[in-house]
């Protein structure tokens, strides 16, 4: 069969040289690779498509298209190209070509933990501002991330620039649930309404994650390190108090609600002792139980905690 417009479009395998596998992301393998034509280093995310007679699934098409639209914001990892190919078994494979970033926030925090140093307060402030700005951009375009965690926040250690990765991939690719360690880790940043089985997410779920990341930047330890959904909830309740209908109207009607041990709320300063007053106030507004009461990313950027930050290059 003759191919219309059959100019030479390189397949992913021909266009890129895989240098090393740098991770097994939630949605597929991730490689550091070099684009042969330009010599540019990129991150290749390889994902099997769940095909049937429809070809490319509509959800994949819709969500990848969002990523292509978001790729001009400086705080979202840029999706530079998409290549469709076939693997050895003849199955369709999608290669998402992202800009490469040297490290992520998880490694960054770990490096400070290993040396025993604290992250400088102005560095924390700068990273948090960039995170709020990136999240505000996504939310301003009606897009939730739903899986914000230090591993998904890529960084350039030289410039201290931070970018959000894996945006929208939660819905673009339907992946069977895996019982791996990293799957458990994602519980640490999950909002209580999600853990309690709320079916209608709002942008507030991302703000909760931002709050958890904020605390972790200060203490270098996860704020709520649960190893099961129940343990995750109990961690939260021990610090913030067991929620009730007074502090969170509607909570007892959520699907996974049970009777829980009754704890009184503790001061956030007990969990994040070295954070100043303004930081504690911002953190408390990010960790409100009632989703609608949680501060928005845009409002967070205007919080007094960031007043003394030089924002000109952010």
């Amino acid at each position, binding site marked *: *069969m*003759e*191919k*219309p*417009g*059959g*100019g030479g*479009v390189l397949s992913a395998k021909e266009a890129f040289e895989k240098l090393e596998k740098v991770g097994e992301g939630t949605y597929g393998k991730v490689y550091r690779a070099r684009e042969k034509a330009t010599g540019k280093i990129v991150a290749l995310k390889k994902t099997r498509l769940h095909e049937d*007679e*429809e*070809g*490319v*699934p*509509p959800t994949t*098409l*819709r*969500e*990848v*298209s*969002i990523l*292509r*639209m978001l790729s*001009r*914001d400086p705080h979202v990892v840029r999706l530079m*190209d*998409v*290549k*469709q190919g076939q693997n050895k078994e003849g199955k369709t494979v999608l290669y998402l070509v992202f800009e490469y970033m040297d490290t992520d926030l998880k490694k960054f925090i770990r490096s400070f933990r290993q040396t025993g140093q604290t992250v400088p307060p102005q560095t924390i402030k700068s990273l948090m501002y960039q995170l709020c700005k990136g999240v505000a951009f996504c939310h*301003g*375009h*009606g*897009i939730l991330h739903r899986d914000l965690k230090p591993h998904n926040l890529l960084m350039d250690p030289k410039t201290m620039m931070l970018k959000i990765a894996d945006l929208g991939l939660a*819905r673009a690719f339907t992946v069977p649930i895996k019982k791996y360690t990293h799957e458990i880790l994602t519980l640490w940043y999950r909002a209580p309404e999600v853990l309690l089985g709320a079916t209608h997410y709002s942008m507030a779920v991302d703000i909760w994650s931002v709050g958890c990341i904020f605390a972790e930047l200060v203490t270098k330890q996860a704020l709520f390190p649960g190893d099961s959904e129940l343990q995750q909830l109990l961690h939260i309740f021990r610090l913030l108090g067991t929620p009730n209908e007074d502090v969170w109207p509607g909570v007892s009607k959520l699907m996974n609600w049970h009777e829980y041990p009754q704890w009184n709320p503790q001061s956030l300063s007990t969990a994040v002792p070295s954070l100043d007053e303004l930081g504690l106030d911002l953190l408390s507004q990010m960790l409100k139980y009632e989703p609608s009461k949680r501060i928005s990313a845009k409002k967070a950027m205007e919080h007094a905690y960031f007043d003394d930050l030089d924002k000109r290059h952010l």
Partner: protein
Amino acid sequence: MEFDLENPFENLHSDAVSYLFLIESDHTPSQNHSQTLKARDLDISVRRELISLISQLSCALDPVLSYLAINYLDRFLANQGILQPKPWVLRLIAVSCISLAVKMMRTEYPFTDVQALLNQSDGGIIFETQTIQRMEALILGALQWRMRSITPFSFVAFFIALMGLKDLPMGQVLKNRASEIIFKSQREIRLWGFKPSIIAASALLCASHELFPFQYPSFLKAISDSSYVNKESVEQCYKVIQDIAIEEEYSSALNGVSSSDTPINVLDHHFLSSESQKTNGITVANTIAVSSPLRDLKRRKITGCGCGGNNPTIHNSRIQFSHAKESEK
């Protein structure tokens, strides 16, 4: 999230509209390609044929869907051209553009039904699923997976708010008429190089001049003052769109008789169905009602039309625009 022509991001906040202006060029056939295409008569006729094919094949579906499919087609042509305009290739391209548009826009309509519909033909070509999928992959690559097209519809609400008509009945009337004009103008090759926002602004100005001539000068000023809009582009685009609107008015007055160069009313399903049956013997399924704000477009009633080459309306329209421009100096 499902795709909506009016809001490519679905939940776009008002302060994020600036981003649409920033990236709309990624979703528009480039100026260079536009010039190239205009110089190639073969490609212009091929485009016209492809648009007719898409309209025929998708007339049983939502007209917004055929608009999106034609958008994909135009961007594909701008990127790839067509090296071998064979009938089966053209049909495959048309089918694949519609298939991609269906995937972006609709979940309630079973995909296999759409496939069956697309493959209806009177002894014509029926494509294997894999063939369509390979063409889809080619189109996706050419469009760089930017399938949430930014079209003139993405900007209409913004400009209406700029004109101070948000949430007013007058704004809704203008929006309806402007949307009708945008639909019809999609076929016009002369608009190829204009950005979607410029087309939206020009369509709204054309609609306001037609429906609310006394308010037209203030609407023109509101749009011209916007930092997002290039005045010269709007003026050029306005002239083309005005011609299209006048041609439509003229042809409608002649009992709907349509020459091959006159834009066919995409919304006139009955006309398309009749035309399809006569010329191709294709039996078109009944239109399925789908709720969509764009489906509520209404034809403007034509109360009268001047005869002869020197249409007074044309003359007055041009003077009006020039006058408005002079008053700005």
